[in-house]
């Protein structure tokens, strides 16, 4: 449905130099799917979204939506944002303070010169969908954060957009409300089957909402995959580090076959899943998530694909619903997530078990 091809966007900074905001960004979003651009601030995700919206003019590339070319540097096409018919929710919500709830939502229909009666019906329908129909005459400035967010969403939806663009729509809400709005947003998107591009720097939001995620760094797309692929098989050190928390173990590949490999490291030999680009004898880092490091006081039963190691408890952090154990194996300290019932004292020996397919070898020299 949406297809972004080799998009480059640069803009001038105050000194007149060029800031490379998006570099060779390409992705496809199928009809009805929610696609997330995930990355730290300054990675180019918002610039990419604004390029799709038409608020930013890219320097090169092509953007096509449902067979309609809205931007192409080669063919000299640039459709103005107000001719694209995309709904957008801004980070600040951009609720017009001089209009009430109804007027805010009716605006997109008024500029399209729809009959008054139809406008009224459609505004009420969409306000009902976001549960704001009770507040239709309220001043827009008198809404709570969550209500403003839903109002912004209603305004984007009322024009039945071909594409919905969301720029960090949950970042201005407090934690509890954010969780609720997240599931509401997900339900709406799935119910209406809206093709959506979502921008966020919050990995848990991205993992919970998306059909597919593109992780971006320094203007480039580093990895595209389903939430599960991104989390469990990061293709890159940056992705592993940025999405969730992880342990890194440096080493060298000594055996490689069928996407599996054996890595020699300071902790001994580790069986791991080899990600793309990992060759024999290559320097790699092995990423393993804290929740994939199983701890036990007695030696665990090891299956063929398991790594079993012995270490000592270096430190423990009690976090309520779980404990972070810092376990020292050789010179390396690994973090493991454990159930609070595990009470091994600091300094005692402890066993670690890591399933081979949860250990991901990533190409790189391992230097921190």
């Amino acid at each position: 449905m949406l297809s972004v091809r080799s998009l480059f966007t640069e803009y001038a900074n105050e000194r007149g130099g060029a800031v490379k905001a998006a570099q060779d960004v390409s992705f496809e979003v199928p009809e009805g799917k929610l696609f997330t651009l995930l990355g730290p601030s300054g990675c180019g995700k918002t610039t990419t979204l604004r390029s799709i919206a038409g608020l930013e003019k890219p320097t090169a590339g092509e953007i096509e939506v449902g067979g309609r070319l809205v931007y192409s540097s080669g063919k000299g096409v640039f459709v103005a944002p107000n001719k694209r018919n995309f709904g957008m929710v801004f980070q600040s919500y951009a609720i017009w303070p001089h209009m009430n709830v109804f007027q805010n939502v009716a605006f997109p229909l008024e500029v399209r010169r729809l009959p008054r009666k139809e406008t009224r019906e459609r505004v009420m329908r969409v306000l009902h969908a976001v549960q704001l129909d009770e507040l239709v005459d309220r001043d827009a400035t008198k809404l709570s954060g969550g209500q403003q967010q839903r109002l912004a969403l209603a305004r984007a939806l009322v024009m039945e957009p071909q594409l919905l663009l969301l720029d960090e729509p949950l970042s201005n809400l407090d934690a509890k409300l954010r969780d609720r709005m997240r599931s509401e947003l997900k339900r709406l998107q799935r119910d209406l089957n809206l093709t959506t591009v979502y921008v966020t720097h919050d990995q848990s939001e991205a993992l919970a909402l998306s059909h597919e995620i593109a992780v971006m760094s320094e203007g480039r797309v580093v990895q595209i995959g389903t939430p599960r692929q991104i989390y469990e098989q990061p293709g890159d050190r940056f992705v592993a580090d940025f999405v969730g928390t992880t342990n890194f173990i440096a080493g060298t590949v000594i055996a490689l076959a069928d996407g599996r490999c054996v890595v020699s490291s300071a902790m001994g030999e580790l069986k791991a899943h080899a990600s793309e680009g990992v060759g024999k004898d290559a320097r790699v880092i092995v990423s393993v998530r804290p929740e994939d490091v199983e701890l036990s006081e007695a030696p665990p039963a090891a299956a063929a694909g398991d790594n079993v190691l012995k270490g000592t408890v270096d430190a423990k952090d009690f976090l309520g619903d779980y404990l972070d154990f810092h376990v020292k194996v050789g010179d390396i300290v690994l973090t493991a997530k454990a159930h609070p019932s595990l009470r091994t004292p600091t300094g005692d020996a402890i066993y670690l078990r890591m399933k081979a397919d949860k250990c991901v070898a990533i190409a790189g020299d391992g230097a921190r």
Partner: protein
Amino acid sequence: MTHAVGRLALPDAAPRFDSRWVLIGVPVALVLWLALVPLVFLLWQSFLTPQTAAAPAQLTLENYVAAYFDRDNARLFLNSLQFATGAALLALVVGTGLAWMNERTNTPFKALFFALAIIPLVIPGILFTVAWIMLASPKIGLVNLALQALFGTDAVFVNIYSMAGMIWVDGLHYSPMAFLLMTAAFRSMDPALEEQAALSGASVPQIARRITLRLAWPAALGALLILFVRSIESFEVPALLGLPVGIHVYTSSIYQAIHDYPSRIGLAAAYAVTLLLITSLGIYAQSRLAREGSRFATVTGKGFRPRTIDLGRWRYVTAAIFILYFVVIVLLPFLVLVWTSLQKFYSAPSWAALDRLSLDSYRAVLDYPQFAGVVWNSLVLAFGSAATVTLLSAVIAWVVLRTKVPGRWLLDNLASLPLVFPGLVLGLAIMVCYLTIDIGVYGTLWIMFIAYVTRFLPYGMRYNSASMLQIHKELEESAAMSGASWGMTFARVVLPLLKPGLLAGFIYVMIVSIRELSSSILLYSPGTEVVSIMIWELWQNGQYVELSALGVMLIAALFVLVLLAQLAGRRFGIAEA
């Protein structure tokens, strides 16, 4: 989801012609015409001999020779510098002291000082000067009379007709401006820096001297430059206080050169170019300083909760200073005008005079045959120029801040260019310009309208830029995403959100237009007099009583306008979403 593309199709655009180019092109052309053309004519005129019936104008350097190598020239230059520097320093010292007391200490009666922001707007320079003549002239000055009665002598204690008198009146008149500038500087300073000094054991005077004033130093220097430029541009004070006793500065010399017979426009232009160079230099230095200052700013985006220093018993002293200042700058000048306006002939307050109180002078002013016309001229000009300035500067500010049109920085600078024109110089430049290009505006209200719009365009720009910056860009972008065209976004989102700023700016420009004297004085003709000109003429005719009555009425009218402006600011001040 099915897209009803056909039904939802956006209104057809006519891509052949984009209306925004007109909206951008027209202001550019207007600003170029307003800001640059008179300047060119002024320069050109300064190289011409006077045109007479016998001989046409010829190219010459004589004007500059006369302006620079006349033996009185050094005197003129030094007088101007001494006057402007003295007034600026006086204003800065008074303003800084008051701002520090108001912002940083627990002095009582602070509420009085919010009124300070209003005073310079409400009392026009000419009335302030006249009031001080009534207070401190050697013969009729009330201060002298009171002191003479007290000590039983004939000695003259204060003489307002002197360099010191000029500095006193002009410095006092600009001190509220210094107060506002320094208040802004103190407000943006982190009080923790002072608290740290207090914890280190410093006393209040030590903190003020070694921390607060040191940090405020760049701001103070910037304020000094602004005040210097304003003072060297002053016309009313040098004209009323300096000319009678032969103390000349550039502004009064320009005025005199034109009113000589035969009129020496070329010489006036040469003086004006010199004055323009000085003010340009001052403004340039000030903007450089502001840029430098922002780089070394100790100020962050962090919000400070204003905390004040406890002065202990000394706070009664500072309160007394406050009240004394209020008396000197507001109460005395206003009361002396009111007193005079209630007399039949000018006389000093006494029990005998108290019996002769009457409203005759008000009746006389209202009965002047030309009074209605004068008020009408003032109102039409104020309303017209305020409306024009507001709209024009709203569009320019929008183009400068919100579009990516190439060359928009040039537009910004051009619109701010009139800042360097002293009122009198602008009046002269416009006079020369429309005497040469005869399009029928000379001698009509239009020429004054052109002068006012040019002069106050930078003020409108300041108001509109400030309120434009407060509107989040996403509010406009979301209109575009909703399908609104450029014009629709401007009309339905930008303008309504700008409304409070526009209204405040509109009223402000109205106020300064009504008070305007220094550029009108070269441009008015019989039938196009405005209120400030009428005051000037009453002064020239020695009709002090009528002048006072008119002045009191003008002050009352301006006061109402200022209250309206404040009210509008509050009423339409909508919270940012």
